[in-house]
């Protein structure tokens, strides 16, 4: 049995990575997870300059999930390159850098800066619901999504994954748009925009009023969207959204994802990714799958 997968020309040792923003750059999880066991580490979004993020409270628990409006706080690309890339390089895992920006120029500046860095793939976040400019502005309009993909592809030396928002009418149309723009892969879903109200204080729970809902509660929505996207494009799909155990990850693979990301579940158990890797392996053995690609999209 072989758990290796090939995503846009990059070989991962297994199909499991982490969802951007739930794992920092891995340092905080080093005590709990053998990072060598992950197919890839996807870092928290990084911009051309440091971002302070949103006011607190930034998170709230919801039934079977949570919502966040952290607002893409990040230390900026300079600190990221000096500190986080060398840290991750100590481990035998692929490095996927999530890139955020407020304008096309911001994204391109980061992508250009990363061109000479020792990282394996780029994930472009055009789907953050928690920042006013940039992010989602590119992720809800197919034409804008295609244009931003074309723009970053001009500067990118590594394969580009476009991270898509579920807050759209047709995920298939968005996936096709970024494929037309030259995306090497797509990842989905980012969080679903939500709102929670404190009925005692009669106000919003999050300082940002709205936030992105994630966790097991949204998993069936994510599986449906991964299925639709995988049927719309030829490039690989990285599936995420509410994966909390191996069975959830396997659903994504059968729906058409070539790899999966574990997000919110890292907050419930920092070591959950290793269990998911083991669980996928056990399922493959039990079901007689020799490779992951034999499973991908098998449900037709």
């Amino acid at each position, binding site marked *: 049995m072989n758990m290796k997968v090939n995503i846009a020309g990059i070989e991962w040792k297994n199909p499991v990575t982490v969802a951007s923003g739930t794992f920092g750059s891995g340092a905080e999880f080093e005590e709990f997870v053998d990072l060598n066991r992950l197919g890839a580490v996807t870092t928290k979004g990084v911009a051309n300059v440091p971002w302070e993020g949103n006011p*607190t409270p*930034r998170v709230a628990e919801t039934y079977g999930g949570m919502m966040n409006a952290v607002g893409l706080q990040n230390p900026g690309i300079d600190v990221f390159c000096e500190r986080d890339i060398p840290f991750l390089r100590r481990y035998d895992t692929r490095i996927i850098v999530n890139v955020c920006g407020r304008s096309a120029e911001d994204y391109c500046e980061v992508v250009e800066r990363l061109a000479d860095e020792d990282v394996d793939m780029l994930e472009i976040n055009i789907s953050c619901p928690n920042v006013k400019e940039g992010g989602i502005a590119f992720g809800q309009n197919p034409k804008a999504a295609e244009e931003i993909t074309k723009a970053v592809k001009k500067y990118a030396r590594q394969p580009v994954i476009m991270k898509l928002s579920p807050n759209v009418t047709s995920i298939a149309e968005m996936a096709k748009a970024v494929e037309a723009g030259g995306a090497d892969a797509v990842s989905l879903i980012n969080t679903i925009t939500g709102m929670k109200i404190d009925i005692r204080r009669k106000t919003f729970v999050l300082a940002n009023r709205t936030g992105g809902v994630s966790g097991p509660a949204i998993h069936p929505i994510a599986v449906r969207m991964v299925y639709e996207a995988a049927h719309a494009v030829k490039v690989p799909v990285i599936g995420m959204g509410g994966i909390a155990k191996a069975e959830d990850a396997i659903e994504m693979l059968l729906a058409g994802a070539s790899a999966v990301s574990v997000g919110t579940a890292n907050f419930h158990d920092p070591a959950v990714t290793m269990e998911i890797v083991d669980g996928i392996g056990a399922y493959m053995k039990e079901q007689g799958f020799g490779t992951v690609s034999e499973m991908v999209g098998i449900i037709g």
Partner: protein
Amino acid sequence: MSRRKEDAVILSQEKIAEGIYSMWLKTDAARGAAPGQFISMYSRDGSRLLPRPISICEVGKGKTSLRVVYRVTGENTGTEEFSRMEAGDMVPVIGPLGNGFPLERAEGKRAFLVGGGIGVPPILELAKQMNCEKKQIIVGYRNEETFLKDEFGRNGELYISTEDGSVGTKGNVMDAIRENGLAADVIYACGPTPMLRAVKAYAEEKGIECYLSLEERMACGIGACLACVCRTKEKDHHTNVKNRRICKEGPVFLSTEVEI
């Protein structure tokens, strides 16, 4: 890989005031635990994913057990679930987390150990471990349910304030400090933000070194998610912006470093 989420075994559970529970846990998290640190406690109900950060009230002899004193925040909450557990039950935990109070700063000094509301419990282990010239414990409660009072009384000079005036000074901890004419060279405080603001203002006006234990909504509890940040005066070395992670660099901060 040196840490993990573990099943702590409940040794005892007791209701010590209305909505306030005391639980002793047998846990590896006791090893190296210091006053001011916290543990993450996890629900067994899959609908509640996020850890509940609970401050450490006492560290047992031999460092194999911890006491937590926590408030039940409402019906159908994670803390209510904890309150229904009994000796022998297991609860998943990670800890100890964060950085505690710098005890050594009190050596040879007159200290205030200030706690308010559900910020009272961590002051107990602090009081037990602190070596200082004059240990003045000032704790504020809503009413006559002055939980942990006797334990405080055994560990320092105790001053109590209650909102309704039923015990000690009527008002808050600052009223108790003024009424009793207390003075300090160093202050340690944990409690609701309005109380911490008042303590911070008092300390800075008088030029007293002051350490505050802050609280904020957390998701991961280990420094990854950037949910529980506080505003700082200077740029933080980790975040590279003017905020710091309460779960990782905190929850205790020097008052002059943070804006609350």
